[in-house]
């Protein structure tokens, strides 16, 4: 009995000292919130984002923090569930009282959280891909990843240069594939593209030869575009080679811009082109490239700390965090409203995703130069020189 009582007192004392320490700390810290899909189906996106944020917040704090204040990072894992994301967003605002948020792994979770941050007037830098996040522009919502519309435009730009105008499309029916397909159909007329065949496949399908046979037998197809994500595009690429369609130029999307795609698709991936962020080809960029320094440094830091290959998704979190930190420095304040205004004024920020120039009408701030057109050669990426 006695030991129990002693334990209780010790615990109480401990709790009190913790509370005190917390109170004292609060003066010199600012809280940044984050809701990420660290587990669940989108974990391959959320995990590198989570690691990147933790890694760089520690680095920033070790270097003295932002404007003399240490950053306290509050991360919640929504498991890819939009309902949970919204609950956590409310908790960040009401309980943790964060001054800003960098997070929202998927478009689904981001859109569920947008109203919470808009109502609370707290800046929210999203890591989700779809254009809906920033179009129409919402006052407090920003994002760092390229949009699927830009990927379509980049592909069409390349096709136009090669004088190919009749294309076949084979798209995944998952959120990513469906959204990009819609965007491609929308911008196709602007580039004079004619979509002569439009096929789809389920995200878990294991054989796409039926759809590809249809495209192959459609008269006049000059190139094929495959908006998709995960293992689907790898299977499409393998089936493409199986059916002997290699004489028709084949384009993948930025959704497969990772080394594992080349591994999975194997020899079939030779000659495939895709738009991707500079991060992927950091070592191949010319020294004069403004992004060279940022992307090689991030790649090195991330890979040595996590022992895992770098991905563009972690890069989006890096960009989001530093856009916010720079804005906080310029605002020299922890007031959410002032920070928001400064984020919107971000100009010439060199991130892993591109050079960011935001404005009141553009809360993404990237142009087509953020994407590089790559071609897979000898099992590795190579930059497609403009004009070839």
């Amino acid at each position, binding site marked *: 009995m006695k030991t129990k009582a002693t334990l209780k007192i010790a615990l109480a004392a401990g709790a009190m000292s913790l509370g005190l320490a917390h109170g004292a700390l609060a003066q010199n810290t600012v809280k940044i919130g984050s809701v990420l899909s660290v587990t669940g*189906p989108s*974990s*391959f996106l959320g995990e590198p984002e989570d690691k990147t944020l933790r890694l760089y917040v520690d680095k920033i704090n070790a270097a003295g923090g932002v404007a003399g204040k240490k950053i306290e990072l509050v991360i919640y894992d929504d498991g890819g569930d939009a309902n949970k994301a919204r609950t956590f967003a409310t908790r960040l605002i009401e309980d943790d009282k964060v001054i800003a948020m960098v997070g929202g792994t998927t478009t689904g979770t981001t859109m569920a959280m947008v109203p919470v941050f808009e109502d609370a007037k707290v800046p929210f830098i999203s890591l989700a891909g779809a254009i809906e996040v920033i179009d129409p522009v919402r006052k407090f919502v920003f994002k760092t990843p390229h949009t699927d519309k830009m990927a379509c435009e980049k592909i069409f730009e390349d096709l136009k240069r090669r004088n190919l105008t009749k294309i076949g499309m084979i798209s995944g*029916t998952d959120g990513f594939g469906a959204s990009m397909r819609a965007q491609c159909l929308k911008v196709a007329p602007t580039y004079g593209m004619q979509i002569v065949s439009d*096929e*789809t*496949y*389920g995200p*878990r399908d*294991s*054989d796409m*030869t*039926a*759809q590809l*046979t*249809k495209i192959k*037998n459609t008269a006049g197809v000059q190139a094929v575009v495959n908006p998709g994500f*995960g*293992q689907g595009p*790898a*299977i499409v690429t*393998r089936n493409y*080679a*199986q*059916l*002997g369609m290699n004489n028709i130029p084949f384009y993948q999307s930025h959704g497969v811009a990772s080394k*594992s795609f080349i*591994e*999975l698709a*194997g*020899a*079939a991936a030779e000659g495939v082109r895709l738009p991707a962020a500079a991060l992927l080809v950091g070592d191949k960029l010319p020294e004069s490239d403004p992004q060279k320094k940022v992307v090689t440094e991030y790649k090195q830091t991330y890979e040595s700390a996590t022992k895992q290959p770098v991905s563009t998704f972690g890069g989006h979190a890096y960009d989001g965090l530093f856009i916010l930190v720079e804005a906080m420095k310029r605002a020299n304040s922890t007031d959410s409203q002032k920070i928001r205004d400064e984020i919107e004024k971000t100009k010439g920020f060199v991130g892993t995703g591109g050079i960011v120039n935001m404005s009141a009408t553009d809360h993404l701030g990237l142009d087509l130069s953020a994407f590089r057109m790559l071609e897979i050669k000898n099992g590795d990426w190579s930059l497609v020189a403009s004009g070839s």
Partner: protein
Amino acid sequence: MAEFLQFLISGLTVGAVYALVALGFTLIYNASGVVNFAQGEFVMLGGMVTVFASALGVPLPLAALVAIVVAMVIGLLLHRLAIEPARGASAVTLIIITIGASILLRGLAAIVFDKQFHKLPAFTGDTPVDLLGAAIQPQSFWVLGGAAVVVLALYVFLEHTLLGKAVLATAANRLAARLVGINTTTIMALAFGGSAAIGAIAGILVTPITLTSYDVGTLLALKGFAAAMLGGMGNPVGAVVGGLLLGLLEAFGAGYLSSTYKDAFAFLVILIVLFAAPQGLFGRRVVERV
């Protein structure tokens, strides 16, 4: 003609995998009355263990064998630790247990292996075979041939061995089987081990074509279940026919109709069949037996 043949072979290849999964369902259902929703996880284990074993330098045939053994051990453990202790429970409870087991296995696979997709090299190269204008991967023949061997082996086992007949007797009437001296617990364990092995073989055969990851089992279990229902739950012939039919429906649906409604089309046909014959295509024999 070339187009038709392309769709046919695609459909048969995918269908053969569905058939093997459906066969796994059938074996366990017959022995225990349980619909084992962890069946897809055995397929995943077959692929994943082979991938990781061969990454460690184990030659492919040996890695495949290791994968089958691992899947069988897990199948037996599933029976011993989860199904057997709850043997008095209703079928619905047991089904829920298997769903829980599938979630557990998937989670463990995500931790033990990783969340990436993996591939295996095709057993006999990647050069497509040209068959009357249709390009066919050599691996497709492995899948079809492998499935045929498994089906044949299972048939011989069930019809021509004493142990196999004991399985059939347990399926027909468990109480009567016990009364004539058949140890039904052993038979059930055998069914779990056997269907785990069949699932693993399916996983190994198909991974070079479809790739694998820790969560491929869910959809395969669903498709395999649909195939088993289409053929008539509990009938091995029905499972094979149902699986092949489902694969063909998907391929021809995507090829000749619309790829967007491919799955809807396949399931619509299943619904119509089940409306017309609620027991499935080959279900009647089971009714007579029970």
